[in-house]
C-alpha cells in the first residue's frame, strides 16, 4: 500500500523496519529489513502475537494505539526481544503504520540481532548514535591504553626518582669512601685552591709532613712543605699556569725535595692534577716519601759496585780502596776501613791457638777527612782480637754503632775522630761460613744516627767481601793443586795435548813426545800426522770415539790404542780428552786431553790373558765340574765339564744361581750360606744335581774358599755319581745272584757228601773217606763264605734286621763253643770261657754269629797249644764281651780298618785262612744294630783282644736314639 505519499519501494527504502497493521491489528505490510530479521512478522499475523508494547506500558489494543498515535513508542518483538523505537501513524481506513527502527544501546547488539548499520536509513539518527557509541568505545579503549601508558610512565618516573635518590646517597657514600680511601692510601694526598692554600690533607700527609689536617687546611702549601729555596720557583710556576695554562709538572710523576715540619728535607715523588671546579681551578697532589726507596737504590747500587769491583779483582787488597770509596759515596759515609784478621796469628804450629791481630787492609776517606790524623792512625794501627771497635765487633760478631761523643772506652781513636768531626762510627763483622775474617768500619759526620736499614744493608757487602776471600783462598788452593797435578803428570808418564778441530792443528807436550821417542820439534802436531802414527787397526776406534764426542753423543773420549814409536815399535797409550771450549753455536773450538803410556799394563794384561787361557784349558779338560760363586750364590765361572754334566752351554751359566743346578747344596739365605759353607768347607758331600731338563742325578760336591782380587769367593767341584752308583747296583745284583745260584747246588752237594760219608750208599774204602772229608770241609767253608756274602749284602742294602730279646749270655756262649769246638780241637787251641750269669738283650742267633766269628778268628790266629779266653762283664747298662788270643796281634795301623769289608790284617791271611774278609764287617754291623760298639786292642803279653758291647737285659734300648 502507499503511505505518506510514498510508493512501497520508497517507503521500504526510507523505513526498512516499517510495518502496516489493519484495523483488526493484523499486519498487512512489513519493511524488507524487518522481514529479514523477524520472519515471524509475516503479513497476516496479529500484532499482539508479534509485539508487546514496552513503552508506554499498555496492552496492545486498537484503542491504546489510537490513543498514542504520533507518540514515541517502544515495541518489543516477542520472538528474540528486538526493541523497536518509532511511532504509529494513521494510514487511513483505520489502519496504522509504524515508522521506526531497532533501538540498540550498544553496537555489540548488532550481531546479536543479525543487523547491519546499513539496515538504518541515512536519516535515522539511531545509525549515527550507534556509530558514536562505537567511537566512544574506541576512545575509551584508547583512554585505557593511555592510562596504562601513564601508569607505566609514573612507575618509571618513580623508579627514576628512587634511582636518583639512591644515586645521590651513593654519591654521598662514594664521597665519604673516597675521603676514607684517600685517608687510607699509602700516598699523601693534598688538594689546594688556585692560590695554593690547602683544601684537603689526608692522614698520610699528616704522617709524611708532620702537620695535622686541622693545622694544614687553609694554610699556604709553600709554608707547609716546600723548602724555602724553592718558594719562588713554586710561586712562579703556579702563576704561569693560571695565566697561560702552561703546566710543566701536571700529570707527570716527578721527584722533588720536600720539607718536614721539623725542617728535615727528604725526597718525595709527586703527581699533580688540575681540578676544574664550579668557580675556580684547584690542584690535587699525590705525594709519596721515597726516602727508603732512594736509600735502597743507593744500597743496591753500592752492592752492584762492590760485586763489579770484586769480579774483576785478583786480590782484595787491590780492590778494597775502590770498594770503600763506592760504598761511602753511595751511602753518604765520610770514611771507611777494612780490617782483616792476621791468620798467621790465629794458629801457631806447636803452640796452639793464640789471640789474632786485626790489621787495617785499606782505608778511604772523603776530601775533608783523608788527611786527618784519625785516618793516618787508622791506616797504620793494628789491634788484638777483642780490643778497639774492630776487635769488639769481631768478638761479638754483630754490627756496632757508636756515638763517638758518648763512647771513648770502646773506641780508642775517639779523640782523633772527634777532632775530625766524626759523629758516628759503625762497625760490621766480616765473616763467612762461621769463620771470623775481620771487620768493616764506616764513619759519618752527620748528627743523625745512621739508619738501621742502611747498617743492615751493609751486611750483604760484608758477605760479598767474605765470599771473595773464600774465592781467593780457593784459587790459591787451585794453583797449588795445579802444581801438584803437574808434578803428578811428570811422575806418572802422563802427557797432555790439545788440538783445534777447525784447523786440525794442535800441540802435545814434551812428556807425550818422550813417550813416543821424539825430541821437541820432531813430531808434526797435526791431526793428519797423529792419524798416520796410529796403528791401522786402532785408527777407526779413535776416529769413532772422537766423532761421537765432537757430535755431543758422549761426554768425553777415553780410548786405548797403539802409536808408532820413533824406533818403529808400537806404544800402547790411553788417550783421554774432551772439548773445553765452544763457540756461540756450540761448535767445538778446542779439545784437550792426556796421553798415558800403558804398554806395561798391556804386556801384563797379555801375560794374564795367556795364563788365563792355560788355566781355562786345564779347567775345561778336567773330568770334574768346577764352579766359582759370588757372595749371592751366583755363578761367576764354570768349566766345560760342569756345563756338560748339567746340560748347559758354559756361556749361559755366569749370573745364574747355583741353586738351579744344586738345589739342596747351599742355603738360599745369605747368612745361612756362610754357616752352611763353614760346615761344608772341605767336606765331600753327596747331594742331588739338577740338569737343565729337570732331571735329578746324584753328585759328589766339595766346597772350598778361594782368595781372589775380588775378595774371598766360594768355589767347588762336582762329580757325577750316577756311573758309580750304577756300577755299585750292578755289583750287588751280581753278587746276590751268584750267591743264590751257588747256594742251591752247594746244598745238594753237601747232602750228597753226607750220604756218602754216612755209608747210606755203601761202605767206602778208607782212602775214599779221607777224600770225602776234604770235600765236606771245603763245601762247609764255601757255604760259610757264601753266607757271609749274603749277610753283608743284606747289611749293605738295609735289609739286615734283628729281633732282640732278654737272653742269658751263657747260652749264647755255649752255642758258639759248640760251633767252634771242632775247629779249636783241630788247631790244638783251648777255649777258656769264664762262666757268667749276665743276661743281655739281643738277637740270640746274631749274637751267636758274632761270638762264633770272633772265636773262630782267635782260634785261627792262635798258635797251637795256646789258649783263647772269653770273658764278659757288666759296664753300667752294657755287657762287654772280650775274646783274647795269643796270636801275632793286629798292627796299630790296621785297627781302624780291620772292621771294613774285605779287610784282613795281612793279604796273605785271606789265602791262609780262606776267608772272604767280611766276618768282622758283619760283626760290626750286628753289634751296631744292637746299639753296641766293637773294637780291638792289643793283649798285654801279645795277641789281640776283640771286644764288643751288648745292652744289658731289661734295658730298653732305643736303637734309633743311640744311632
Amino acid at each position, binding site marked *: 500500500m502507499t503511505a505518506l505519499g510514498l510508493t512501497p519501494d520508497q517507503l521500504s527504502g526510507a523505513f526498512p523496519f516499517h510495518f502496516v497493521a489493519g484495523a483488526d491489528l493484523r499486519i498487512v505490510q512489513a519493511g524488507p529489513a524487518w522481514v529479514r530479521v523477524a520472519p515471524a512478522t509475516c503479513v497476516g499475523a496479529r500484532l499482539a502475537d508479534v509485539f508487546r508494547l514496552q513503552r508506554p506500558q499498555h496492552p496492545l489494543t486498537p484503542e491504546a494505539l489510537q490513543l498514542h498515535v504520533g507518540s514515541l513508542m517502544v515495541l518489543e518483538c516477542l520472538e528474540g526481544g528486538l526493541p523497536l523505537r518509532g511511532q504509529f501513524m494513521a494510514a487511513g481506513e483505520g489502519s496504522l503504520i509504524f515508522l521506526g527502527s531497532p533501538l540498540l544501546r550498544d553496537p555489540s547488539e548488532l550481531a546479536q540481532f543479525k543487523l*547491519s548499520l546499513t539496515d538504518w536509513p541515512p536519516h535515522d539518527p539511531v545509525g549515527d548514535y550507534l556509530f*558514536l557509541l562505537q567511537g566512544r568505545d574506541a576512545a575509551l579503549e584508547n583512554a585505557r591504553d593511555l592510562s596504562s601508558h601513564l601508569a607505566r610512565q609514573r612507575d618509571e618516573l618513580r623508579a627514576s626518582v628512587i634511582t636518583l635518590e639512591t644515586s645521590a646517597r651513593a654519591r654521598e657514600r662514594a664521597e665519604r669512601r673516597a675521603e676514607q680511601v684517600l685517608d687510607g692510601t699509602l700516598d699523601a694526598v693534598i688538594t689546594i685552591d688556585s692560590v695554593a692554600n690547602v683544601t684537603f690533607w689526608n692522614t698520610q700527609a699528616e704522617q709524611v709532613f708532620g702537620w695535622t689536617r686541622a693545622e694544614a687546611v687553609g694554610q699556604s702549601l709553600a709554608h707547609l712543605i716546600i723548602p724555602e729555596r724553592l718558594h719562588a720557583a713554586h710561586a712562579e710556576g703556579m702563576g704561569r699556569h693560571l695565566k697561560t695554562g702552561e703546566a710543566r709538572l701536571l700529570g707527570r710523576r716527578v721527584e722533588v725535595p720536600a720539607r718536614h715540619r721539623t725542617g728535615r728535607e727528604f725526597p718525595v715523588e709527586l703527581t699533580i692534577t688540575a681540578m676544574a671546579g664550579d668557580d675556580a681551578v684547584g690542584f690535587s697532589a699525590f705525594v709519596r716519601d721515597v726516602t727508603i726507596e732512594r736509600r735502597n737504590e743507593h744500597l743496591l747500587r753500592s752492592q752492584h759496585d762492590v760485586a763489579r769491583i770484586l769480579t774483576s779483582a785478583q786480590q782484595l787488597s787491590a780492590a778494597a780502596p775502590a770498594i770503600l770509596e763506592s760504598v761511602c759515596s753511595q751511602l753518604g759515609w765520610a770514611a771507611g776501613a777494612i780490617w782483616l784478621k792476621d791468620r798467621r796469628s790465629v794458629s801457631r804450629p806447636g803452640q796452639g791457638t793464640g789471640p789474632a791481630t786485626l790489621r787495617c787492609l785499606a782505608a778511604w776517606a772523603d776530601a775533608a777527612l783523608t788527611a786527618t790524623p784519625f785516618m793516618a792512625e787508622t791506616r797504620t794501627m793494628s789491634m788484638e782480637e777483642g780490643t778497639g771497635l774492630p776487635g769488639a765487633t769481631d768478638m761479638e760478631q754483630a754490627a756496632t754503632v757508636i756515638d763517638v761523643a758518648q763512647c771513648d772506652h770502646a773506641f780508642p781513636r775517639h779523640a782523633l775522630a772527634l777532632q775530625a768531626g766524626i759523629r758516628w762510627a759503625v762497625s760490621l763483622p766480616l765473616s763467612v761460613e762461621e769463620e771470623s775474617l775481620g771487620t768493616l768500619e764506616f764513619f759519618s759526620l752527620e748528627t743523625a744516627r745512621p739508619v738501621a736499614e742502611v747498617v743492615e744493608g751493609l751486611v750483604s757487602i760484608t758477605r760479598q767481601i767474605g765470599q771473595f776471600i773464600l774465592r781467593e783462598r780457593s784459587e790459591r788452593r787451585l794453583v797449588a793443586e795445579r802444581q801438584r797435578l803437574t808434578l803428578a803428570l811428570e811422575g806418572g808418564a802422563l802427557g797432555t795435548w790439545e788440538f783445534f778441530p777447525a784447523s786440525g792443528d794442535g800441540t802435545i807436550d814434551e812428556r807425550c813426545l818422550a813417550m813416543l821417542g821424539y825430541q821437541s820439534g820432531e813430531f808434526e802436531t797435526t791431526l793428519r800426522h797423529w792419524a798416520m802414527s796410529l796403528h791401522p787397526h786402532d785408527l777407526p776406534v779413535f776416529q769413532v770415539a772422537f766423532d761421537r764426542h765432537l757430535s755431543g753423543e758422549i761426554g768425553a773420549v777415553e780410548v786405548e790404542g797403539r802409536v808408532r814409536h820413533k824406533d818403529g815399535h808400537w806404544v800402547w797409550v790411553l788417550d783421554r780428552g774432551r772439548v773445553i771450549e765452544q763457540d756461540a753455536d756450540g761448535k767445538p773450538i778446542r779439545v784437550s786431553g792426556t796421553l798415558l803410556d800403558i804398554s806395561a799394563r798391556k804386556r801384563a794384561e797379555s801375560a794374564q790373558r795367556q795364563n788365563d787361557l792355560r788355566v781355562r784349558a786345564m779347567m775345561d779338560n778336567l773330568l770334574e765340574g768346577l764352579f766359582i760363586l759370588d757372595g749371592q750364590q751366583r755363578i761367576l765361572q764354570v768349566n766345560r765339564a760342569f756345563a756338560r754334566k748339567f746340560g748347559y752351554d758354559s756361556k749361559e751359566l755366569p749370573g745364574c744361581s747355583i741353586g738351579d743346578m744344586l738345589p739342596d747344596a747351599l742355603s738360599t739365605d745369605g747368612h745361612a750360606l756362610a754357616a752352611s759353607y763353614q760346615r761344608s768347607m772341605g767336606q765331600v758331600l753327596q747331594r742331588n744335581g739338577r740338569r737343565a731338563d729337570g732331571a735329578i742325578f746324584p753328585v759328589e760336591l766339595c766346597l772350598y774358599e778361594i782368595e781372589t782380587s775380588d775378595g774371598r769367593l766360594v768355589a767347588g767341584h762336582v762329580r757325577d755319581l750316577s756311573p758309580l752308583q750304577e756300577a755299585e747296583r750292578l755289583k750287588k745284583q751280581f753278587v746276590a745272584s751268584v750267591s743264590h745260584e751257588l747256594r742251591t747246588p752247594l746244598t745238594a752237594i753237601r747232602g750228597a757228601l753226607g750220604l756218602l760219608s754216612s755209608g747210606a750208599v755203601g761202605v767206602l774204602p778208607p782212602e775214599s773217606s779221607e777224600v770225602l772229608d776234604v770235600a765236606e770241609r771245603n763245601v762247609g767253608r764255601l757255604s760259610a763264605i757264601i753266607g757271609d756274602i749274603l749277610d753283608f749284602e743284606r747289611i749293605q742294602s738295609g735289609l739286615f734286621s734283628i729281633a732282640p730279646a732278654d737272653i742269658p749270655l751263657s747260652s749264647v756262649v755255649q752255642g758258639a763253643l759248640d760251633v767252634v769246638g771242632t775247629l779249636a780241637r783241630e788247631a790244638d787251641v783251648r777255649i777258656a770261657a769264664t762262666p757268667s750269669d749276665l743276661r743281655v738283650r739281643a738277637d740270640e742267633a746274631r749274637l751267636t754269629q758274632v761270638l762264633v766269628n770272633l772265636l773262630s778268628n782267635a782260634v785261627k790266629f792262635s798258635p797251637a797249644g795256646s789258649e783263647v779266653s772269653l770273658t764278659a762283664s757288666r759296664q753300667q747298662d752294657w755287657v762287654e764281651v772280650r775274646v783274647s788270643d795269643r796270636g801275632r796281634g793286629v798292627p796299630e795301623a790296621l785297627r781302624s780298618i780291620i772292621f771294613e769289608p774285605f779287610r784282613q790284617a795281612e793279604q796273605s791271611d785271606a789265602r791262609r785262612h780262606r776267608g772272604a774278609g767280611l766276618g768282622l764287617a758283619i760283626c760290626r754291623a750286628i753289634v751296631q744294630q744292637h746299639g753296641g760298639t766293637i773294637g780291638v786292642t792289643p793283649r798285654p803279653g801279645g795277641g789281640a783282644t776283640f771286644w764288643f758291647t751288648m745292652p744289658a737285659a731289661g734295658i730298653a734300648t732305643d736303637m734309633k736314639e743311640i744311632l
Partner: protein
Amino acid sequence: MYGLVNQAIEDLVRTHHGDQAWEAIKRRAGVEIDAFVTMEGYPDEMSYGLVAAASAELGAPAEALLEAFGEHWTLFTAERGYGAMFKMGGSSFKEFMLNLHSLHSKIALGFPRLQPPSFWCTDVTDTSLHLHYQSARQGFTPMLVGLVRGLGRMYQVDVTITPQAAAAGENAVLFVTFTPTPHA
C-alpha cells in the same frame, strides 16, 4: 590529523623496526609526544614530519612508507576497536567501498574537527569500480592505495589497484578490481 593516524604510524614502526627506531624517528621529526590520543587532533605537519623522518631513518621512499601505513592502518584500526565500525560500513568489500563516504560522514560525528576526505564510486560492477578521492590534504594518495589493500585483506578478497587520471578537483582516481565474495 587525528591521533589515530599517528598511532598507526607508530605501531607500524615499533612492530617492524623496534622501539629504538621509533624514538629515533620522533627525535628526527622533533616530536616529543610519548603517546598519541586517538581522538585528539594533531597538526598535519606532525604526520608529514613523521613520515619524512621514517623515510630518512629507515631508508625507504615516503610513498612506499605511506602505502605501508595505509595497509597497516586498516588492520591496526580494526584491532583497536574500530573493527565494528568497519563492519557497519558494509558486509562486503564492494558494499564498504560504496559506503566510504557515508562512513566518513558518520565518523565526523565523533571527530568534530575531522576534515574527512570525500570518496565516491563510479562504474561499479560486481568485480570492479572506480574510486574517486578528494581531500584538502595532499600527498596521501599512496596511503589510500594501502588502505584499499588493507580493506581487501580484511574482507579476504584479492584486490588490484591501478591509478587513473584524476579530474580537476580530485586528488586521485583508482581503478579497483576485486574478487566477488559469496555474500557480496
